[in-house]
């Protein structure tokens, strides 16, 4: 049976695709929202640490599964290997309705105005593709607000003096600090820093018909047992479905965007839940599959006019793959600092996000989510025993006396860190797989050293009797769950993939609506920014649709 023609297909139901689909459906466009995973419930994996999205040694609780998905990773010495979704280096984001937003830690950061103009702010960095965004913070501000209200954010922005201007306050009050938070709050104040409760995409009070968070220790990496965590699967996607205009088509793997001889998209080819090839025609194609999968799909969509993949005639698709160089410090305390109040992370400072002498960019520092016992087996100072009685003693005696402070350093993008498609390796359906290669810019290490040093100072001030640093940003592939940048937006089609509205420079009716658009990734967890971009792109598609129906 042939699928009925629709106005738009949106590929990917995560932080970007969900809001975009909702914007289109709410503006009267018929939408098919494709998701390669399925609807997920808390019940199946519940609080199982070993099969969560944070510790995947026995698989990813919320996908994708290793029987159908794999990638090729090329290391700095040029060695290639096939990597499966539960293995390090795959750069996994969950494959389910809501994607990462089902099981994320749910920090809800706005980027700062400086994050949108990194090159103007700091100048050129040798060997990098550091650039300004074609849009400013003010352009995105209304969409940040929309994300905060339609998906739901709890926080106390006024306590953060570095927070950018906002037109509307947050809809929910902040979360109370746990014991760690209270200890770190006093210490930060003594240092003259500016601590505040982390804004979270979690209900601190009943909101939008869903309950308040009851503060489980198993939060990041897990679905929420009380539905208090706000993802796209329990907010904008149900709203889109309720319009009657949006069908969520799960367990479908989109293989290719179909392009005609005039260089326009006519729809997508995909494999349905029975692995049968299908075609869905549409007037508009919106790609929101994450920085890796979005780039892979465009590169796999070849035609006469686009022999190197859709929108890739200037070889920018898949370039500038970036994530966050996570960097940390750990402190051991004499007394217990653990009160079992989840999710752990609750306090942050933005004192080192910008304007730190000699540093390009920077990043926030926050206390870490509660580590579950297996994860904690890796929390050891350099040189400590990795097994045996000493390791067991540490586990027994220090678990409740450890505080970790960490943060995402804003990576400096470079051209060679990239997603391409592998010439030989194909996935379960025969679609060429993503090939990840390149390395972080060497600058990142310097930024991480600064941040880890500040984190350690914070812990010492808080009374830690023993501290150590784990400095991130070393050479190696970037990406991870915060992957971004592979379809950079810009004003010049020779140095970017989309225009300022997420529309491919070269194909009018193909849009990107996810972290791929990001020019620079901020020193913040990117979920809220990706949501804002989803609303922003969706809003502009709906606008253009009203005028021209996007037909040239």
């Amino acid at each position, binding site marked *: 049976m042939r699928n009925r023609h629709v106005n738009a297909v949106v590929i990917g139901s995560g932080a970007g695709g969900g809001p975009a689909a909702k914007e289109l459906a709410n503006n009267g466009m018929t939408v098919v929202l494709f998701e390669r995973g399925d609807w997920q419930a808390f019940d199946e994996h519940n*609080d*199982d*640490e*070993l099969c969560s999205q944070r510790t995947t*040694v*026995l*698989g990813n609780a919320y996908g994708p599964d290793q029987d159908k998905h794999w990638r090729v990773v090329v290391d700095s010495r040029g060695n290639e290997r096939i990597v499966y979704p539960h293995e390090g280096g795959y750069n996994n984001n969950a494959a389910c309705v809501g994607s990462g937003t089902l099981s994320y830690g749910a920090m809800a950061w706005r980027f700062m105005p400086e994050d949108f103009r990194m090159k103007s702010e700091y100048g050129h960095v040798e060997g990098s593709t550091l650039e300004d965004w074609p849009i400013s913070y003010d352009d995105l501000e209304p969409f940040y607000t929309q994300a905060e209200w339609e998906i739901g954010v709890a926080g106390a922005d006024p306590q953060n003096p570095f927070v950018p201007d906002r037109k509307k306050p947050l809809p929910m009050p902040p979360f*109370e600090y746990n014991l760690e938070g209270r200890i770190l709050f006093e210490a930060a104040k003594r240092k003259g820093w500016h601590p505040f409760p982390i804004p979270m995409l979690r209900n601190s*009070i009943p909101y939008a018909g869903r*309950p*308040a968070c*009851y*503060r*489980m*220790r198993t939060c990041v990496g897990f679905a929420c047992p*009380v539905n208090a965590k706000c993802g796209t699967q329990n907010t904008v996607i149900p709203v889109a479905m309720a319009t009657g205009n949006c069908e969520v088509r799960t367990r479908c793997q989109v293989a290719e965007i179909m392009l005609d001889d005039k260089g326009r998209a006519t729809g997508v080819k995909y494999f349905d839940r029975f692995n049968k090839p299908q075609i869905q025609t549409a007037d508009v194609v919106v790609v929101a599959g994450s920085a890796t999968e979005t780039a892979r799909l465009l590169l796999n969509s070849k035609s006469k006019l686009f022999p190197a993949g859709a929108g890739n005639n200037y070889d920018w698709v898949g370039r500038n793959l970036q994530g966050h160089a996570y960097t940390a410090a750990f402190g051991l305390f004499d007394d217990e600092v653990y009160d*079992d109040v989840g999710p752990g992370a609750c306090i942050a400072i933005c004192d080192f996000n910008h304007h730190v002498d000699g540093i390009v960019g920077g990043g926030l520092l926050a206390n870490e989510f509660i580590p*579950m*016992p*297996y994860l*904690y*087996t890796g929390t050891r100072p350099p040189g400590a025993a*990795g*097994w*045996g*009685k000493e*390791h*067991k003693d540490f*586990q*027994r005696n220090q*678990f*409740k006396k450890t505080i970790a402070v960490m943060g995402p350093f804003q990576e400096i993008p470079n051209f060679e860190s990239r997603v391409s498609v592998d010439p030989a390796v194909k996935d379960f359906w025969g679609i060429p797989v993503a090939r990840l290669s390149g390395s972080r810019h060497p600058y990142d290490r310097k930024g991480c050293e600064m941040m880890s040093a500040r984190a350690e100072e914070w812990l010492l001030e808080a009374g830690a009797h023993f501290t150590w640093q784990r400095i991130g940003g070393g050479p190696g592939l970037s990406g991870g769950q915060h992957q971004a940048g592979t379809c950079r937006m810009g004003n010049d089609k020779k140095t970017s993939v989309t225009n300022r509205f997420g529309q491919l420079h070269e194909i009018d009716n193909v849009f990107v609506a996810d972290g791929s658009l990001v020019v620079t990734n901020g020193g913040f967890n990117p979920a809220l920014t990706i949501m804002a971009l989803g609303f922003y792109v969706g809003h502009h598609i709906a606008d253009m649709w009203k005028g021209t129906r996007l037909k040239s």
Partner: protein
Amino acid sequence: MSINRREFLKGLTLAGGSLLFFPACKGNISFWRVLTEEEASLLTAITEQIIPADEDPGATDAGVVNFIDKQLSGFYSGLKDSYRNGLEAFQDYCRKKTGANFEALAWDVQTGLLKDLEANRIDHPYWEENTASRFFSMIRNHTMQGFYGSPRHGGNKNYVSYKMMRIDYPHVIGRNIYTPRSETLNIYQP
């Protein structure tokens, strides 16, 4: 009770068909799914070195080898050969070096041998390219998973590791329906 004919036939076929497998049961009764008794015995000694019993249970009491065995028949089925060949080579090495099986050796001697394995200080043709440490860290990681993960995977019997770390499980946590924290029930305020 009404019985659907298709259901009935399905049940019957399953029952009849499964009888054919019966002879396969003979002599196949082992506690382990994948491991042999010898492998399990060696692995028990190694994992106990990695997490030794003290005032709290160690790897053996927690059922870590049961975890590994269970996963080798499931998620880790691709690692069967790594275990089988690695354990055999390590036992072979121990015998050649000390004249005895690893399990029979004194505690400190065992520790020393594992440290050699971990540091690639091991002279055996099976680990030609310094891959001994990889074998060791595989067992080390799986031991940690079996001891600190959920019992549903076969280890951490009775949540011994959670008790050791004084983490309450099942998690005692009530509904938040009644009142916000600030308006708790009528408890006397001093």
